[in-house]
């Protein structure tokens, strides 16, 4: 019995209920609840690192009849990213929302979002995954509404409708799987699923639904307005974590559950879409006139990079080379999570000081807000993939997988994408470090600037120097049938 696994879900949920009951204390409850969730995740991670994958059969029923929670290397890494990012963002949000009349609702929904993320990364049951997806989508949409402007409501409504469409497709896929294999437990399914019409249709429906949620080109159109119009702390978690949750599920489905079903052609199609996303998203980020819009388009591009790995993973034989490529994928996702949340928080600081986020008018930022300007530079390093960031190592590995598999087509995509990323980052830094009066001198509050710079440091230094830990953790699998 490993009741430890329920705590990353139970702690934020309990805090959310308390925050709803005591609205006047909601900021304290919110920050404290986020910190305790971090503690719970750390305890779970320690156990996984020490003794391998763990499982908890809820209610004492055997998985299948009941629901199992599982934690393995991949889920622990995602959990750690989501809890560290949300801790930093919570500290920032405690200042950002300190004067908002909606702050009680913000903190409740914030904690519900963390509940949903943790539940999703821990779930070992397909239908339960659908429920966590619904909770994640709904709390994300409501958080995105908190901006209160007409554009943010319109963007949130689009986000809601498309998210529901995605969940519906996922649910139909789950129903087909249950009809075909008689169980929803993912460990059992990893062994049972074999190639056939049921598996093909279910995989396409589920992947299609998740592609909407992870905003892969051409299903990305809802993302830039929704992410750029939300309040800064919300944009940070939407871009860094919520999009990654859908990607995590795609990885689980493609690599563990449906590994017998996935064909090279299907992976190639997703890879091509990813390639277009890299080019188009980077180009749009270069054209963007607003800082947050630029960050949102950059997310579209970075999601594209992650999908480039799929055809490579499908081509590589199982074994060390594939694990290394998978580790690089996860490392890139983690680096982007930290870097992009840092970027959005820095954008939020600038926006609150300057009253706008028009890139061309950001002159003087470096003098007025040196820490924030430094954050933008560090996050930029990670977004481009310069050493010593985690994404440098990940892209290096991506290139070497391209050489091993001989899929040369991805080479120009990676090269042009990286150049474009460099262009949009340096364009921004050029304006931010130029002299000017765009951002007036102001008192800076440590609680606003420091979380962002810490996140950026994790992306550029910690993930760069301790990347080997990621490669060691990823192969720890709870789905023996899929990997073996």
């Amino acid at each position, binding site marked *: *019995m490993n*009741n430890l696994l*329920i705590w990353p879900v*139970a702690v934020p*949920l*309990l805090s959310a*209920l308390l925050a*709803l*009951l005591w*609205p*006047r204390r*909601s900021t304290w409850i919110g920050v404290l609840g986020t910190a305790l969730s971090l503690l719970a995740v750390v305890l779970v991670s320690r156990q996984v690192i020490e003794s391998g994958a763990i499982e*908890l*059969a*809820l*209610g*004492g*029923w055997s998985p*299948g*009849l*009941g*629901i199992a929670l599982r934690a393995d290397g991949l889920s622990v890494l995602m959990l750690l990213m989501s809890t560290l990012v949300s801790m930093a963002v919570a500290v920032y949000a405690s200042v950002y929302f300190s*004067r*908002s*009349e*909606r*702050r*009680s*609702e913000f903190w*409740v*929904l914030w904690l*519900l979002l963390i*509940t949903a993320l943790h*539940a999703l990364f821990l779930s070992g049951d397909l*239908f*339960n995954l659908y*429920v*966590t997806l*619904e*909770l994640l989508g*709904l*709390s994300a*949409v*409501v958080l995105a*509404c*908190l901006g209160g402007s007409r554009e943010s*409501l319109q963007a949130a409504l689009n986000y809601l409708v498309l998210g529901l469409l995605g969940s519906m497709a996922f649910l*139909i896929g789950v129903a*087909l799987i*249950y*009809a*075909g*294999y*008689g*169980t929803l437990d993912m460990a059992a399914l990893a062994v049972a699923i074999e190639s056939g*019409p*049921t598996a093909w*249709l*279910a995989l396409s429906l589920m992947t299609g639904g998740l592609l909407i949620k992870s905003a892969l080109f051409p299903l990305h159109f809802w993302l830039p307005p929704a992410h750029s119009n939300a309040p800064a702390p919300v944009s940070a978690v939407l871009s860094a974590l919520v999009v990654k949750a859908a990607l995590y599920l795609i990885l689980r489905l493609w690599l563990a559950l449906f590994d017998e079903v996935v064909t090279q052609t299907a992976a190639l199609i997703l890879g091509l879409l990813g390639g277009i996303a890299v080019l188009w998203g980077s180009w749009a980020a270069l054209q963007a006139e607003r800082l947050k819009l630029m960050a949102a388009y950059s997310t579209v591009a970075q999601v594209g990079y992650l999908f480039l790995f799929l055809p490579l993973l499908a081509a590589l034989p199982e074994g060390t080379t594939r694990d290394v490529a998978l580790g690089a994928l996860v490392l890139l996702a983690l680096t982007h999570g930290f870097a992009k949340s840092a970027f959005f928080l820095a954008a939020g600081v600038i926006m609150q000081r300057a009253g706008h986020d028009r890139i061309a008018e950001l002159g003087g930022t470096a003098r007025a807000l040196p820490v924030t300007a430094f954050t933008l530079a560090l996050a930029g390093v990670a977004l481009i993939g310069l050493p010593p960031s985690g994404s440098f190592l990940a892209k290096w590995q991506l290139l070497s997988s391209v050489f091993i598999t001989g899929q040369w087509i991805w080479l120009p995509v990676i090269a042009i994408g990286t150049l474009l990323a460099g262009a949009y980052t340096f364009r921004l830094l050029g304006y931010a470090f130029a002299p000017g009066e765009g951002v007036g001198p102001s008192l800076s509050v440590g609680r606003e600037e420091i979380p962002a710079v810490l996140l950026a440091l994790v992306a550029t230094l910690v993930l760069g120097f301790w990347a080997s830990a990621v490669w060691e953790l990823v192969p720890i699998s709870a789905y023996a049938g899929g990997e073996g």
Partner: protein
Amino acid sequence: MNLTLLPDLLLAGMLIGLAWAALSSDDLRRGVVLFIAFGLLLAIVWARLLAPDLALAEAAIGAGLSGALLLVALRDGGGADQHATKPSTLNRWLIDLFVLVMTCLIGWVLWLTIYAEPVERLAQLANAMLDRSGVSNPVTAVLLNYRAYDTLLELVVVLAAVLGVVVVGRERRGYREAGPVFHGLVHWLVPLLIVTAGYLLWVGAHAPGGAFQAGATLAAAGIVLRLAGYDAAGLPDGRLLRWLLVAGTGVFLLFGLAMSFSGGGFLQYPEAWSGSLILIIEVAATASIAAALVLAYRGGRTDGWPLMDEKAENREVSS
């Protein structure tokens, strides 16, 4: 052809026809009314398929409450002419074609898995374990025991949804006070709905019924009250409302955690107690679901919903 098949074919045909009519209606109000009719017919279909639990849920939530929410959204949504925005003809054809292809594919696969090569599913196991679940209705056993964690998270989804309603705006204006005839009807209808909700809740342990159906029926009582001019629709305000919204999830979660502290697993009820524990959880869940649905029908935050910064609001007023 078997003669008993005829009513079923008729039902299926009408169901597809109603769905098509609801989707293709230019007038939004007509579309909503057709959607309600579709829900009621679907409830009958579920009953014909020997799934009375689903039939009850579909009638109460799918047709009843969703219909009421859609109608009230239409009332407040804008002016007199509410027409659906139409996609271009080409897009429409493409969407129709896509949906048709997907429907055929899904239908084909379902036929394959259910008739051509059926596999053993979990129903047998669920029934076999029924003695140890504390209830004798297998649906309730799945919802509140085997897969209680799903239901817990679904209650959280309802909570997140109603918070969304609260965040987006203030509640809508109420209705005029009802005339004497409707007023008299309300005096009969509301107690009847409350008793029905209590019955559905209680009977859920061994027959079709349960927290979601009971909550929806209780919410219907609130909606009737609001239609008759009682603006609060039977909901308390302020702190008590928050407690009501939290009750279902809170009781569920605390019970689950208490069990993991007392030596079992999370949500692992002690066998002797499971029947009573499930009933308590269902009572709390019914209250929360009903409160959430009625609040959604009222359409936004209530006057007593605390706004956090009175100072900020005063500034707004004075400037």
